[in-house]
């Protein structure tokens, strides 16, 4: 049925004819229609990657097909979300090998964006854990691919934003855990210099992420908290936790009621940050054992918090810079705080090495921050893009709603090969999204002008 849809940033909003399916043969029939489509998971990418005039929602294609509890292998249909997967695997002593900062994404989305977690430097990105998957191609054929079998299809599907076809079933490996708790360490850093050092000092930790307070200037520029974690062992638990070491967290959630002006959310996040920073006796370091939920998914406790950015929506700007480009990080953070438009918090992680065709992660520092959509924003981000490129970095397609095709090209060295593989498996661009058209991945270059005009119109509304 035709309806208005948007992804997590609420920008852009488009009208789409969204089709659902529960069974593989229903999907085959849909794809056989003489139309173009893009697969859509839970709409947790931020921009226009899973938006198109015709979308195929995978959310009802969510069955678990097999679970090898000895080897830790799970076989699922691509529309199952991570929260459902956790409910199944955690009580059996297994965990997701890689998880992003929300559990409300599908396995299909995890592969198509090749998502990363706080453990990228240790465990790599999600695709690293995919044993094999079936992909339905534009010609109606379903092909099983893996790192060793139909490798070109596999590598272009991981991080390929749905442009090779629709991912059907997937087998991936899990991580063995003794308990469902996390041994957490939070360390405060006075400034950027210190937080980058701390990342080095604690490089052996499986999970690490930092929250940076973007409001601080001069000697406190980059004031931040490093959050580290390891899966807790039985002996780390208190008696209450020990009584059921693999327990699932209690389901408690509040829903963000409606769109609010963005300062409300910012005030809230700053308060939350200051609470963490100044709370608990000003100690430099806090150690505790917590359930996996607040550790991995702090934001999921408030459903629809994205409404906090109001009706115009927001952009999450996420880039990665090589390790030696610390100056770039400083430049960009400075510009954002000078401009006074960013969210007050930014998230910083370190990526380990990753060789891939089109996935975002590559060794370096990755920074993400939310910026409400308003007049002049896109011009400003175009300037930031140039800095990112100057320092040899790139942007994350899964967060993107506005980058120019040249920026993608300059940031991704294997783009031509990626395009060639799309051409092979999706020759008539049956699978295409607003994003792929905008980035000229599924469009002849000269027709691009129309789209750019459209986004100008959208921008003029603010």
């Amino acid at each position, binding site marked *: 049925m035709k309806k208005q849809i948007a992804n997590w940033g609420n920008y852009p909003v488009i009208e789409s004819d969204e089709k*659902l399916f529960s*069974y593989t043969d229903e999907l085959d029939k849909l794809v056989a229609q003489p139309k173009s489509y893009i697969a859509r998971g839970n709409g947790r990418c931020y921009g226009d990657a899973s938006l198109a005039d015709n979308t195929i929602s995978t959310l009802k294609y*969510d069955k678990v097909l*097999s679970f090898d509890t000895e080897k830790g292998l799970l076989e699922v249909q691509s529309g199952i979300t991570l929260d459902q997967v956790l409910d199944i695997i955690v009580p059996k002593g297994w965990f997701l090998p890689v998880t992003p900062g929300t559990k409300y994404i599908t396995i299909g989305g995890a592969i198509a964006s090749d998502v990363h977690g706080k453990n990228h430097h240790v465990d790599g990105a999600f695709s690293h854990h995919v044993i094999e998957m079936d992909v339905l191609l534009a010609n109606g054929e379903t092909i099983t691919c893996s790192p060793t079998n139909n490798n070109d299809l596999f590598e272009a599907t991981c991080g390929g934003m749905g442009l090779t076809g629709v991912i059907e079933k997937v087998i991936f490996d899990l991580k063995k855990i003794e308990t469902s708790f996390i041994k957490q360490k939070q360390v405060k850093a006075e400034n950027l210099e210190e937080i980058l050092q701390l990342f080095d000092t604690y490089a052996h930790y499986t999970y690490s992420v930092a929250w940076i307070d973007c409001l601080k200037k001069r000697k406190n520029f980059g004031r931040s908290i490093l959050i580290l974690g390891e899966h807790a062992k039985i002996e780390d638990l208190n008696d209450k936790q020990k009584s059921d070491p693999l327990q699932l967290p209690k389901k408690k959630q509040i829903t963000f009621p409606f769109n609010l002006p963005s300062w409300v959310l910012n005030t809230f996040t700053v308060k939350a940050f200051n609470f963490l920073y100044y709370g608990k006796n000003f100690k430099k370091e806090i150690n505790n054992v917590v359930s996996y939920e607040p550790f991995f998914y702090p934001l999921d406790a408030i459903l629809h918090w994205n409404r906090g950015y109001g009706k115009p929506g927001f952009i999450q700007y996420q880039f990665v810079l090589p390790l030696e480009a610390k100056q770039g990080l400083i430049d960009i953070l400075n510009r954002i705080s000078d401009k006074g438009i960013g969210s007050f918090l930014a998230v910083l992680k370190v990526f380990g090495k990753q060789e891939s065709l089109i996935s975002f992660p590559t060794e370096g520092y990755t920074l993400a921050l939310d910026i409400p959509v308003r007049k002049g924003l896109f011009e400003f981000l175009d300037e930031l893009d140039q800095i990112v490129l100057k320092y040899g970095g790139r942007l994350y397609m899964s967060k993107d709603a506005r980058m120019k095709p040249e920026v993608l090209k300059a940031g991704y060295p294997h783009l031509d090969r990626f395009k060639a593989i799309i051409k092979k498996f999706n020759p008539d661009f049956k699978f295409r999204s607003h994003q792929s058209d905008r980035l000229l991945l599924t469009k002849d270059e000269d027709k691009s002008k129309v789209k750019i005009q459209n986004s100008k119109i959208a921008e003029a509304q603010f």
Partner: protein
Amino acid sequence: MPTVLLLGATSDISVAIAKEFGAHGYALQLAARNTEHLSPIQSDLKIRYNVDCTVHAFDALNYDSHQSFFDSLPVKPDVTICVFGVMYEEEDAWNDWKLTHRMIDTNYTGAVSILNIAAKYYSAQKKGTIVGISSVAGERGRQSKLIYGSAKAAFSAYLAGLRNKLFKDNVHVVSVKPGFVYTKMTEELPLPKPLTAQPEEVAKAVFNAVEKKKNTIYTKWMWKYIMLIIKNVPEPMFKKMNI
């Protein structure tokens, strides 16, 4: 461990009901005409809830097969839930007797055929529960649901009668009257959000009704009152309405 039989197990509402009963430890028997579609549902339920789950071929329109279908169930279910149903475009049905006939037969005749069999078994056992998924569309005849509504009306009357007939045998019958539900059946219809239930809400209500031995339930609850109003519009006025 009690067992529940789901008739029309490939439907969205049935999948949700199976999950709800599975989560409460019931063994599950899934019956549908397309058993290939049942196999992922079966593995899913087994893995999620660590319960037994079996798959059975069943066609509501193949009345002659119903007795042998029920006899061949490896374990007799404690609860039998009739979920299958079809809703064709009334305009198409108006122009094609075959469709009209099939809509009546699926929603009413097929349901009576199989539930009579379950009912006889339960009354002999002096225990058991039958649930029928009817619809608010059966509460009052109107043009936009001419055939579907009348077939569901017949089914609702059957369920009420069955409840009355089996009471003395300690067999309970639940009539479920959903309003709008987001499923395959209604995928292309623009449904009003506040009045439309998710299949999971219907499933919870059904489970609760079975446990608490409720007679008739509406999902969402406001449909009870909406239908009360609709039923009370005087016929001279109602017949002129475009409804």
